[in-house]
């Protein structure tokens, strides 16, 4: 055994040990899984972000909900082709030791092409993979490939585009099922919003209970693939890379359905969330970037790892967010969880595709400090804002009016100065528990109009402004908010000099305002 192989097996062993502590109570000894993932591909492949984390997630679901014992679940992340070949040998030995009619589950997530898997800089041909799987001593074999052009593996002896998938309930399932995340000329896509590849995300969601169409507490291979393929196609329909059509090849026979997971069974270590209200839900675990999107008819249950979850429900006129504690082997009801309406801007910043942008309008009134010794001003403005996940942009248009009183001692006239301004602010917002704070930079133009008491005409002059700005916003439900703004603009103005002539000066000022806003 060379050093690399030793490291591989050590790593696999470490994962097995880590999973062992969380072994499900309903482990089925005859189940063996090989989970392979590699974020890296060939030199020309773009590095993936979620392939290896998807593999970890799948391994947890298989061991907790699928009855795969931890020491029979081999996980290879970022390993070589040689490591995969060795792992296939280990899997074979485990299968030979397994009682009854063992089930083999092989999963690959990473880059691929129509010829083979890109495991790092090396390739493992689809022909070799399929032959190796068929050579393993299992009664039933399930191969899942989540990769670009994965459909090619289903075409090694002909495949089918995904249609409703069912296994005839005849006898114990035997044979080979191949599930591919994409067509043989398609790209398999990842999403930052869900923190996963589309196909694996929906496959996992299905395995966790969302695919349990007949509500019997078990998720069969057919239910899982049917759910994952439908949701993957729907989610990628409008994507830049185009729709992704999962494919399968099925050579299974048997009286019973091939059950992959049992999310409804107690003792798994997972908790259950009952989506006992119909709706469109986005489920996010506290601290996780990814979001699970579930459409519920009101009777769905999904198995979740213990933790605190935020469940956002997108309703026609608002967003409702509930926080739910999921405890091990306990069920929690969404309907019973306290919920609150949430401002659209906050939802946008959380990401997850619940809402890509939100728009708002606000009316503000406030004051500005003295500029050019012409006096402090009352100010009024309207602001139109677009909130995106990473930043907000606000167009502000307003006017202010300052009055420099006459000086009777020297005969200086009073000066009324009206300033009309328009600015664009780029803001980075942070949502705190009760308020949203934002800070950024504002730049714009200003038109001063000076009217002297001693003269009937007004002098108009243009200037530029730039400076930091900040705001605090108190949401009042999803549509309304109160807000307070502050800014420290620098005015760049061409000014008359007391000795004659003009010069451009920078004038520092402060502005505060408060008002109310509405979101769309």
């Amino acid at each position, binding site marked *: 055994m060379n050093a690399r192989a030793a490291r591989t097996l050590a790593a696999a062993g470490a994962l097995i040990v880590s999973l062992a502590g969380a072994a499900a109570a309903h482990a089925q000894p005859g189940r063996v899984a090989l989970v392979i993932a590699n974020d890296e591909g060939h030199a020309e492949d773009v590095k993936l972000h979620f392939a290896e984390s998807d593999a970890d997630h799948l391994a947890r679901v298989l061991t907790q909900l699928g009855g795969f014992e931890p020491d029979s679940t081999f996980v290879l992340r970022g390993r070589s082709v040689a490591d995969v070949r060795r792992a296939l040998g280990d899997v074979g030995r485990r299968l030979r030791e397994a009682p009854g009619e063992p089930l083999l589950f092989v999963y690959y997530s990473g880059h691929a092409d129509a010829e083979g898997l890109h495991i790092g800089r090396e390739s493992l041909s689809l022909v070799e993979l399929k032959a190796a799987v068929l050579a393993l001593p299992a009664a039933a074999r399930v191969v899942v490939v989540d990769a670009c052009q994965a459909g090619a593996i289903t075409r090694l002896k002909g495949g089918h585009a995904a249609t409703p998938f069912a296994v005839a309930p005849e006898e114990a399932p035997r044979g080979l099922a191949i599930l591919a995340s994409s067509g043989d000329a398609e790209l398999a896509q990842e999403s930052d919003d869900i923190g996963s590849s589309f196909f694996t995300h929906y496959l996992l969601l299905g395995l966790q209970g969302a695919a349990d169409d007949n509500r019997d507490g078990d998720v069969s291979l057919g239910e899982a693939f049917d759910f994952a393929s439908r949701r993957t196609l729907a989610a990628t329909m409008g994507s830049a890379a185009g729709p992704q059509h999962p494919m399968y090849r099925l050579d299974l026979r048997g009286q019973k359905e091939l059950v992959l997971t049992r999310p409804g069974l107690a003792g798994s270590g997972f908790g259950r969330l009952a989506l006992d209200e119909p709706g469109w839900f986005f489920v996010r675990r506290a601290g996780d970037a990814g979001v699970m999107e579930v459409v519920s008819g009101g009777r769905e249950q999904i198995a979740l790892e213990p933790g605190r979850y935020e469940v956002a429900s997108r309703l026609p006129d608002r967003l409702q967010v509930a926080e739910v504690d999921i405890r091990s082997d306990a069920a929690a009801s969404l309907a019973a969880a306290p919920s609150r309406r949430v401002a659209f801007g906050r939802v946008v910043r959380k990401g997850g595709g619940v809402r890509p942008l939100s728009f708002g309008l606000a009316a503000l009134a406030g004051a500005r400090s*003295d500029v*050019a*010794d*012409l*006096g402090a001003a009352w100010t009024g403005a309207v602001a139109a804002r677009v909130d995106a996940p990473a930043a907000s942009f606000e167009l502000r248009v307003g006017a202010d009016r300052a009055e*420099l009183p006459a*000086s*009777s*001692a*020297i*005969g*200086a*006239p009073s*000066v009324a100065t009206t300033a009309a301004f328009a600015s664009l602010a780029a803001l980075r917002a942070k949502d705190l528990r009760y308020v949203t704070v934002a800070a950024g930079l504002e730049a714009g*133009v200003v*038109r*001063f109009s*000076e009217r*002297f008491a*001693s003269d009937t005409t007004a*002098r*108009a*002059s*243009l*200037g*530029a402004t730039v400076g930091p700005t900040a705001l605090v916003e108190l949401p009042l439900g999803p549509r309304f908010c109160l807000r307070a703004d502050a800014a420290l603009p620098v005015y*760049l*103005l*061409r*000014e*008359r*000099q*007391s000795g004659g002539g*003009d010069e*451009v000066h920078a004038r520092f000022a402060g502005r505060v305002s408060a008002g109310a806003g509405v979101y769309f």
Partner: protein
Amino acid sequence: MAVAGCGNALVPGDVVRAPIFSVAGVTSPAPAPGEALRVAALWVDPLGSLDDRPWPLGVAVDAAGSFQLDLAAAPPAELIRNLPSSMDPNTTVASFAFAELVAFDDRDGDGTFSVGPIADGSLIESPDVYRGTSAAHALFYVAQPDTAASIPELDAVIALPPGYHLAEVTCDPTAMRGRFEEAMAGAQDRIPLVPDAKSLPESRGCLRSHVPTPAP
């Protein structure tokens, strides 16, 4: 920066309030302790038809008798006298304003030296008390220079470029007429104080009783 170059230049407040003309001088003697002595420009109509009017507020005289009257703007339009052409009454040949420098005891503390209508004899409104007039200088504001030599006694001043000008007065006491020429730059005014009076003395007629006649 490019935007900041468009339109007119903004006139900052400090420029609005910067004096464009100053008259400095002393009273003789210095005010008595506790006396609220001020000096004001009292704008009078050399044609003798408009009421006298102080503008701006009077400036305080310090204990040593020094004062400086600062002016930050042109006089109000109603203080400026337009001289019509004798050939065409609708044509203005010159526009100017004329002021005496008057010292007064500001007994009501409002800073203003108020004078009644000319028709009533330009009486000083109580409780302020007239304390003197500069016999040597008068203040002019030229809005439109007189290029037609309309008023020979004033032309040396009102033909000057637009703006304030301090004029030196040469008074002929026998004729009660004054002749006005531009004072030297930096000239210091001197106001001799007189005993308290409630009406302007006859001597100021040297400055104002002259009724100029537009040139034919």
